[in-house]
């Protein structure tokens, strides 16, 4: 009996000790208020790619201490695929949320709508905000307030393997039709598929949809447009690319398979954005960086269009250290920091002034992507923008794997949107 009690007591004691010695969740040690020097901890959730981008961002973030010696930056890398969910969990419960989050452009209005973000107007976070590219700043506005600071901007283009193109004797395709002939020729000459088209993420579908003059929704007219004639045509185009063998696709692990295939020279082209550059250069085909070519996405029947994306830094409304968080957001998006990041990672700055800095102006990737971004198609920055992908990707994959027709897929997506956007046509 006595031993029994001892054991119970031990278990109980262990529980208590652990509860006591567990680490704190987030930064709760409040910063200095008012005009005094900033202090305390700022927790930042970064979503950049582990293994390539994260090291640079971590170092840059921790250098904040050089400017504000009393502030400790806690860098936390949360995988991009999980960050939205984790932030939502933490933000609504009021516990465990970071002070600053790297928020994808489509997440920003959604988080703001849910009340999770602190408005930044009039705070130091928006210092020199007139320098920001208009497009980059667009997603940070919601209902007349500003909820984010643009950190990077991006769009998509065709990445191609110059060696394979030379071997097959083809030029970069400018239209979908050219893409098909080029792919056929590559296949014939080298036995390799032409284009890798991700089938498990609808973001990779957007440039084809835009190319046919389609769009997901028309926010001004409050109309769902994904299932109109142009939308259906977009679905038909990708289906045809896959069926005709011009593109190879994958319904699971698309990102990893695409990167592996392209980096190993097993496929000649892929559609991708600046975020893939660092990882692609690490591939064995691109030890000579010059082998990586880049060109605008092929134009559809209605023209050429790639989606505009990017990331903002947003401050959690429940942060206990708002002042330091504002300062940190400003620091991370300052011209100086952006120049460092652009140089090291070929990510596109969001400030006009950065593009003319010497290291940036000569970066091949950035000089290529800048005009692409200028022309890129903006999504409507409504809270539902982030919600539009879940129904779309389901139908997109179904169309590509032959589970449904382009017509039915477009219609099903449209129906789901109308359920989401009440009272829209």
């Amino acid at each position, binding site marked *: 009996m006595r031993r029994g009690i001892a054991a119970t007591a031990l278990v109980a004691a262990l529980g208590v000790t652990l509860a006591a010695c567990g680490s704190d969740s987030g930064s709760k040690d409040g910063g200095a208020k008012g005009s005094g020097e900033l202090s305390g901890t700022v927790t930042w959730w970064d979503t950049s790619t582990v293994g390539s981008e994260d090291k640079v961002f971590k170092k840059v973030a921790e250098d904040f201490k050089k400017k504000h010696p009393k502030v400790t930056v806690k860098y936390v890398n949360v995988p991009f695929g999980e960050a*939205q*969910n984790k932030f*939502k969990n933490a*933000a*609504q*419960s*009021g516990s465990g949320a970071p002070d600053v989050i790297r928020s994808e452009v489509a997440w920003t209005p*959604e988080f703001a*709508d*849910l*009340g*999770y973000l602190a408005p930044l107007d009039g705070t130091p976070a928006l210092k020199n905000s007139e320098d920001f590219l208009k497009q980059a700043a667009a997603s940070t506005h919601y209902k007349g307030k500003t909820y984010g600071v643009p950190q990077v901007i991006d769009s998509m283009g065709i990445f191609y393997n110059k060696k394979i193109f030379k071997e097959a004797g083809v030029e970069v395709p400018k239209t979908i039709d050219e893409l098909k002939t080029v792919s056929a020729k590559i296949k014939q000459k080298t036995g390799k598929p032409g284009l890798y088209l991700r*089938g*498990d993420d609808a973001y990779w579908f957007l440039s084809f949809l835009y190319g046919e003059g389609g769009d997901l929704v028309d926010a001004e007219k409050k109309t769902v447009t994904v299932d109109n004639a142009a939308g259906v045509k977009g679905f038909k185009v990708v289906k045809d690319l896959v069926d005709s063998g011009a593109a190879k*696709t*994958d*319904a*699971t*692990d698309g990102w990893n*398979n695409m990167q*592996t*295939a392209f980096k190993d020279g*097993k496929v000649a082209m892929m559609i991708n954005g600046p975020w893939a550059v660092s990882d692609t250069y690490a591939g064995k085909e691109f030890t000579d960086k010059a082998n990586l070519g880049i060109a605008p996405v092929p134009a559809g029947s209605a023209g050429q269009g790639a989606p505009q994306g990017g990331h903002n830094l947003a401050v*959690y*409304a*429940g*942060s*206990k250290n708002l002042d330091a968080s504002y300062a940190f957001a400003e620091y991370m998006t300052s011209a100086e920091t952006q120049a460092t990041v652009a140089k090291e990672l070929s990510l596109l700055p969001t400030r006009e002034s950065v593009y003319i800095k010497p290291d940036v102006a000569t970066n091949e990737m950035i000089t290529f992507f800048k005009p692409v971004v200028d022309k890129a198609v903006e999504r409507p920055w409504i809270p539902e923008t*982030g*919600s539009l992908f*879940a129904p779309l990707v*389901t*139908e997109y*994959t*179904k169309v*590509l*794997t032959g*589970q*449904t027709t382009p017509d039915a897929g477009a219609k099903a997506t449209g129906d789901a949107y109308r359920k989401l956007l009440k009272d829209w046509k």
Partner: protein
Amino acid sequence: MAVDTPSQSVVKAAGDSVARGRSRGTGKPRGAAKRSLSTHWYAWAMVAPVTVVIAVIIGYPLVRGIYLSLTDANERNVARSIGVNEIPATYEFVGLDNYADALTGSQFLSTLGWTLLWTVSCVSVTFALGLTLANILNRRIAGRSFYRLLLILPWAVPGFVSVFAWRFLYNQDNGLLNKILAGGGIDAVPWLNDPTWAKFSVILVNVWLGVPFMMVALLGGLQSIPGELYEAAEMDGASAWQRFKHITMPGLSSVSTTVILLSTIWTFNMFPVIFLLTRGGPGEATQILVTQAYKFSFEVSPRDFAQSSTWGVLILVLLMLFAAVYRRVLRKQGEVW
């Protein structure tokens, strides 16, 4: 659940008949009242930790889930606390609308159809393989312990590791399975990229994961069948099949009913295999009820708590119905469960 063995005392058997009876009441002690107070004190103390943990961690969310399923709660109208700001809940009671929507819409029913197919195929194949292997391992055969060790391995390896390994093997371009097939001149199989193949692939992995549990449980059952029965049967000239049918199967019936029940419940709700292998894709080809319910409350936005809870409650009701029917059928056949 309460299966009396003859070795138990009469007192115990009498006591258990209370628990086994149909009465829903908490069983007013029919006699032996003297000892009951002190006995209850100990009994309650012993079950208290489990009761408290389950009540807090499962009970509260469960009750709340049932409540949410009767509302239109989603991410935008539930209560949130953001630092000092408390946003109150604004969702409304909608009665049984969610249930009506789920049961009349095609999504729930088609997902249920695949979930049933998934459960039945997984459980039956797993059981058949487990039974076969257990029977072989129950014989005198060289290296038996070694085989057993290898065969239980899938159970000992953490699920996410083995699912990762399988994804590796299934990979259409770089996976080993297709490489082996290519060696035999067979075209690459789209293991996870074709809806039908994906269904097959997820079942295969789940069977792989589930066989060791089945095998070990059935092996235990086999070992509790006394060898004398077989010897006697053999002397009477019973064939191997007759021995299996008249000694092995009856001897295994109680373990079988338990493992089939458990494994049905587990498979029906087998979240990790589907989620880590295909995330329900391609499209929604491998989405089972529980992964779809997860999708409602996590992957769509705004998160649809009401619908997710509705599906959760429906899953619970279906499984309880199953358990009740299962129990009734067994009782008709004379099984005591």
